[in-house]
């Protein structure tokens, strides 16, 4: 696999944390290429390093050694400001507990990344994004007035607003019941069909099965990396 085709290209990446006097080797040499349009599930036990890998891919953290090339740029060399800019313009985050501003309306929540990227016509674009997740009518409701599934859709609308190259989802269904979980996953699949690259961390195997490729981490290393064999029957829906 040549790195030219990769949206993400990771080479011999390690991450070591200092926890008091103990050094924790969270990642011990990761090599990975993610092509545009992929839908990847990263699985692994807690402590396997999957969150650390997500944080580095999400430009929230820097590797200790190794290279991380995102959209052809060596992100491992970026300073804090350039990382922030990269996060704002090219990445969308979906979190387990949604991380919405509770006192702001859905619309204001979706607008948030646009404020920092200095984009114009924020209201219009935020409304369009809410429409895309089917919540245009609830634009002026606050997260506290919404169900978990709706809140996660607001969060997805927020992740979509800057037309990111990559959406990173950290246990996006962790706080949802199984029906809503499938709704959200179906929505991810729909977005993926539209060409958006998605990387999702999960520990639920049936959710991971909905992705196109599953990477399993253990002790900071990739142990398996294989495409999902059978498509879910719902895959063809809509």
């Amino acid at each position: 696999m040549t790195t030219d085709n990769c949206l993400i290209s990771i080479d011999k990446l390690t991450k070591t944390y200092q926890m008091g006097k103990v050094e924790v080797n969270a990642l011990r040499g990761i090599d990975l290429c993610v092509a545009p349009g992929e839908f990847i599930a990263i699985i692994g036990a807690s402590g396997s390093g999957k969150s650390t890998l997500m944080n580095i891919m999400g430009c929230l953290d820097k590797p200790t050694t190794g290279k991380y090339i995102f959209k052809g740029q060596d992100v491992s060399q970026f300073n804090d400001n350039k990382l922030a800019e990269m996060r704002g313009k090219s990445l969308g985050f979906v979190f387990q507990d949604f991380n919405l501003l509770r006192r702001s309306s859905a619309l204001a929540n979706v607008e948030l990344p646009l404020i920092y990227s200095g984009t114009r016509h924020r209201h219009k674009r935020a409304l369009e994004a809410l429409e895309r997740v089917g919540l245009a009518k609830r634009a002026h409701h606050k997260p506290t007035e919404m169900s978990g599934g709706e809140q996660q859709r607001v969060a997805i609308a927020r992740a979509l607003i800057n037309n990111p190259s990559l959406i990173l989802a950290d246990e996006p269904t962790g706080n949802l019941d199984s029906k809503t979980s499938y709704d959200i996953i179906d929505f991810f699949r729909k977005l993926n069909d539209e060409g958006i690259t998605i990387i999702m961390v999960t520990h639920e195997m049936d959710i991971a099965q909905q992705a196109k490729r599953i990477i399993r981490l253990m002790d900071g290393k990739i142990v398996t990396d294989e495409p999902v064999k059978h498509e879910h029957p719902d895959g063809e829906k809509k």
Partner: protein
Amino acid sequence: MKFVDSLKLALRSLTVNKLRSSLTMLGIIIGVGAVITLMSVGRGVEAQITDMIEDYGSNTLNVISQTPGVKGLASMQSATPSLTIEDARAIAERVPYVTGVAPVSENFVEVTFGNESAMGVIEATTPEFEEIYNYHTAYGRFINERDIGLKDTVVVLGQKVVEDILGTKDPIGQKIKLSGRSFTVVGVLEPKGGQMMGVSMDSIIVVPITTYQSKMFPRKTSRGEDAVQSIAVQITSSDYADYITTEIENLLRRQHRIKAGDKDDFAIISNEQILSLFQQITGALTIFLGLVAGISLLVGSIGIMNIMLVSVTERTREIGLRKAVGAKRRDILLQFLIEAAMMSLTGGGIGIIGGWLLSLGISQIQTSGLTLRAVVSPDIVILAVSVSIFIGIASGLYPAMRAARLNPIDALHYG
């Protein structure tokens, strides 16, 4: 992120926590209000004293007794009297550029009429006093040379004394008693307003200096002559003050037969010197009051810092999220800094208005003829505004920097 967006953001989070923001601002409101009020009272007193002394005429020199060789106010108060009417006359006759000379002795005295009595300040002097100190008679006449020569028991009363003891009676020709001795009222002074050391300037009682010396409070100089407390000398221009001072000094040394090399038993001070002395005192008073008020400002600013620190901790996850969606350090820093600055500026603004109103209120209060004047001058307002801006930035900076430095991953998983 645009600055306007930062402003909106800060305004929003302040209005979300209305009670908390208002209580925090209250500290600054009280602090700034106190600075404005206390400093304006200080300024008011200063202006009042300046007005009064200028009203006496800045072209006036005062000769007073002094213990030889001792400097300072204390030496003047306890000095053996050394000045006489003769000295005053000599100054009037022999010193150039002098337009009026009045010997003056002062004392507090009880003045009674029938059953009414009041306290007044005796000004025992000569007719020149009227001109030098700008007192004019409203009715009747001032004391004259004849009264001086005959040591007459006549008296000219200030407006307040008339009101206190005579009420609405026609004062001219009434017999009143000053420390038990009967005096005839020959004139009433025009009201002057104002006060000197808490005594109304309309509480004065003018009697002939000779009457005072012989019948009321006789005091002798060390050479056995009738003494006067001080001599007021009006000069044509304060430009000549130094020259005239030297002339008077030489003259009085001859009059008092002071040998060369011996120290003066008198001192000459100009109204300008008195003015600058008072201005030093009131200026120090104003600064002191400002500092006291400044302590409450400091406490207010600690309040802002405290609340900002709480707010940063409370919103750690929000900060993490903002960073995740592209906020730079600068954006977070500005958000919290503007919040702190807004609180202190708004508080400062309300404090200025409050302090100003309070100063107006203080100016209205009148207790026993004593008015306290409060002057709000632009420099006090500018000082208060710049202090509150400074406080906002100083107390907001540390919490804002803490927020800006938060690691997004830790912040997102906080709590």
